[in-house]
């Protein structure tokens, strides 16, 4: 017997801090494991500033997305896209274009989830659970994420909020490793890159930041939509700092030439620590287990967005949420298992990265159209009255 629960009475329950944590934990996901290698392959020693510049570049995109969301406070992309694209005369055209936009975003979300899960599963099986079949690892992760994604957005937000501090936990171990084993000579010399390579390097950096398109869905649930600026820009700032520490740290430990040969540089930092007074040795299992939290929240946010998109698009009732989440799981599993080996996974992941970057730019187009057509949403009464 479930008692009727007292609720907040509104769907607009995501606070500014929760918005911050959502953006941080979505971007800060599985890609970080191999991030320094991916960037170093193109930009070499110059990655220590490339990563910041491309971060700022992504920050601008996020700012544009935020502007779009703030134009339609209290609405998700599913709700405002038809308004921007459609007109009174040709209703079907707007709907058709919306379906295309949403399909692209959904495809990106789904492929993002499956790639994240696969990459994490590979890392897990290679480094820690050597005798466990990867199918089992992926299945367990997918099922538990599906359970979590079957809950409401408010709960997903609280979940992110609660696990936020764990994002910084591996950082302690990493910083320790950098202090102990890092050498500043590995960082120099700078500016060795050809200028012709700069755009490519910038893009490879920008791929690492993908995933922020979730805010197109989450921003429809903000308690104070006009403070979204603060949350999103703080979030991207935090991630730039985190990424920079990781890149510079691993570079200082391994050096450019070794870095491109290491599969998961961030994971390797756990191995290089030498401490006699420590209870545990070889911390990569521990790091990878804590990493699970980051992957979990990141995948969860993408997953919950996909589910919410389906629910809003088909105007379903909230109680179907759980079943939709479970319905996606087999699809995701098949997609995750599609690449045959690690090499192929890398290729797929790269494609997903590019695709994701393009998808994230799609809403900018929407913003331009919205400005040109002077479309604007109104503040829902619930939000304006609560303040």
């Amino acid at each position, binding site marked *: 017997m479930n*008692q009727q629960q*007292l609720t907040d009475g509104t769907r607009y329950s995501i606070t500014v801090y929760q918005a911050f944590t959502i953006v941080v934990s979505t971007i800060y996901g599985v890609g970080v494991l191999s991030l320094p290698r991916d960037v170093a392959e193109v930009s070499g020693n110059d990655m220590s500033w490339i990563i910041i510049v491309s971060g700022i570049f992504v920050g601008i995109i996020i700012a544009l997305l935020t502007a779009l969301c703030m134009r339609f406070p209290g609405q998700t992309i599913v709700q405002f896209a038809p308004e921007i694209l459609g007109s009174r005369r040709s209703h079907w055209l707007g709907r058709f274009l919306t379906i295309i936009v949403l399909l692209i975003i959904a495809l990106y979300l789904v492929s993002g989830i499956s790639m994240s899960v696969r990459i994490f599963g590979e890392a897990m099986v290679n480094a820690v659970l050597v005798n466990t079949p990867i199918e089992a690892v992926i299945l367990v992760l997918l099922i538990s994420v599906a359970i979590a994604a079957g809950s409401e957005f408010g709960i997903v937000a*609280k979940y992110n909020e*609660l696990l936020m501090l764990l994002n910084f936990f591996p950082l302690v171990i990493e910083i320790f490793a950098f202090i102990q084993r890092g050498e500043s000579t590995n960082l120099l010399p700078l500016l060795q890159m050809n200028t012709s390579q700069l755009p490519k390097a910038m893009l490879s950096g920008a791929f690492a930041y993908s995933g922020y398109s979730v805010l197109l869905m989450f921003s429809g649930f903000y308690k104070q939509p006009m403070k979204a600026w603060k949350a999103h820009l703080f979030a991207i700032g935090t991630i730039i700092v985190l990424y920079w520490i990781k890149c510079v740290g691993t570079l200082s430990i391994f050096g450019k030439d070794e870095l491109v040969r290491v599969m998961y540089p961030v994971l390797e930092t756990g191995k290089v620590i030498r401490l006699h007074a*420590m*209870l545990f040795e070889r911390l990569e*299992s521990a790091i990878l287990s804590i990493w699970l939290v980051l992957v979990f929240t990141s995948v969860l946010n993408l997953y919950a967005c996909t589910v919410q998109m389906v629910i809003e698009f088909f105007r379903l009732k909230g109680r179907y949420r759980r079943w939709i989440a479970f319905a996606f799981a087999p699809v995701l599993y098949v997609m995750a298992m599609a690449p045959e080996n690690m090499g192929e996974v890398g290729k797929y992941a790269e494609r997903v990265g590019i695709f994701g970057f393009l998808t994230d730019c799609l809403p900018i187009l929407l913003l331009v159209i919205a400005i040109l057509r002077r479309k604007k949403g109104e503040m829902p009464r619930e939000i304006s009255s609560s303040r």
Partner: protein
Amino acid sequence: MKKASYRILRLKERRKQKKLEQHNESQLSKAVQEETHIFDTEAKNVEFIKNILKECSDLVVRTFVIDVPKDLKSSVVYLDEMVQKDINHNFIIRPLMKYSDKRESVNDLYDEVYNHLVQAGEVKEIEDMKSALDAILSGDTVVFLDNFRKALVVGTKGWTTRSVCEPHAESVVRGPREGMSETVVCSLSMIRHRLRDPFLRVKYFTKGKRTKTTVALLYIEGVCDEEVVKEAEKRIQDIQIDGILESGYVEEFIVDQMWTPFPLIQNTERPDSVVAHLLEGQFAILVDGSPYALIAPAVFSQFYYSSEDYYERYLIATFLRFIRLLSLFIALLLPSLYIAFVSFHPEMVPSKLLIAMAAGRATVPSSPILEALSMEISVEILREASIRLPSPIGPTIGIVGGLVIGQAAVQAGLISPAFVIVVGLTTISSYANPSYSAAISVRLLRFPMMMFAAAFGLYGIMIAMMLIILHLVQLRSFGVPYMSPFAPLNLKALKDTLIRVPWPWMKKRPEIYKVNDVVRQGGGEK
């Protein structure tokens, strides 16, 4: 087709049930319906009550004559063991029997009895038989008089109770040593004694069709959120059961979510703790027959709070909280970590320790998970046995239990010595938890945790943790998120969570429970 026949069957069953109920009603309590007015002669009244309470040897009916011109019969009815006999003898029966006034007209006698003769504080006038019966059954005394179609109920409740003693389940080093007792009145007196606020509200409900148990809802008006109080009232009123013997009955009826191992309503037998919670904006429920008060809305922090935290100096209190939180994690995780390290991640254990552990495990016949499960279950059995065992033979359990999980088992090569340490530490840690019902839920969660660890090592443990945290985030107690103030984050309320800041810094109430009157200090004494 099948459905229809099933429906008919059910309809028949329901009709049968209804008939049975009606039959019962007519047999037992047809007369106890509220319409039955008090009769005009005392004899009829007594007859009526004797008829309903037939074969109750403890029913006392004292019939006598009051000395007025036309001799007036009167009787005093009560249950022998439920009343304070001194009051009955000296202040009801004696004045009535001694009274003698030849001039008095019969009509004025009732007022005379009410105003002068019955010398007790709590006197009520009733007009129907049902309330007379209720009064008798709850320990009051009823006075019937001839010629009047009303009766007097005198409050003489006085059954035997346990004396106030130290709360056994929540003992503290520094702090009051009073525990609440089984009667609501007694517990309430301890609470009122500590909280002399005119805004303390106490609402009585009578619940339980047969037990007619008193359930009291306590809150401070203006501090507790009114929505929450309304919801609580509604949920208490919706309870339909024949008997309530302990506050646990009420708890399960009013709790938000049944499918959870976590206690969504806190319980305590300490009056000071009840008052502290009332002051923070929660409400309390007292149930007659139980020394445990229910406190809601509850949050996760009950897992590591003790009332002593507020009496001890803040630094020590903070330290103790960290210790308790650590013990919470040890109790939940240590056996599963052992399993994970032994079966999946031996590389993480330092080599010297690993060699020692391997030597210990060399003779152990079973796999780590079986070893762990069997040991943990035997500890649970030991714990249960030691609670049930009468105290004279209690020490036996200690000795035998020590043999089972101790040296003998290790020497026989059935368990590794390292795991004995793990089991010991886990058990001790789980009892460092101040609240028994919270501790037991952690002990329960240990077992699925161990399964996950046996299947996937550290990865499995983390997955299980993620699911537990998800569940915690989803929970609500009377509309308050269970993990607050961590999620949703409330920086001001964090002053009294993992740490406890000194009292002068807590100028405001924690805003977890949507309190109305926020200011706690300053603003002048009222």
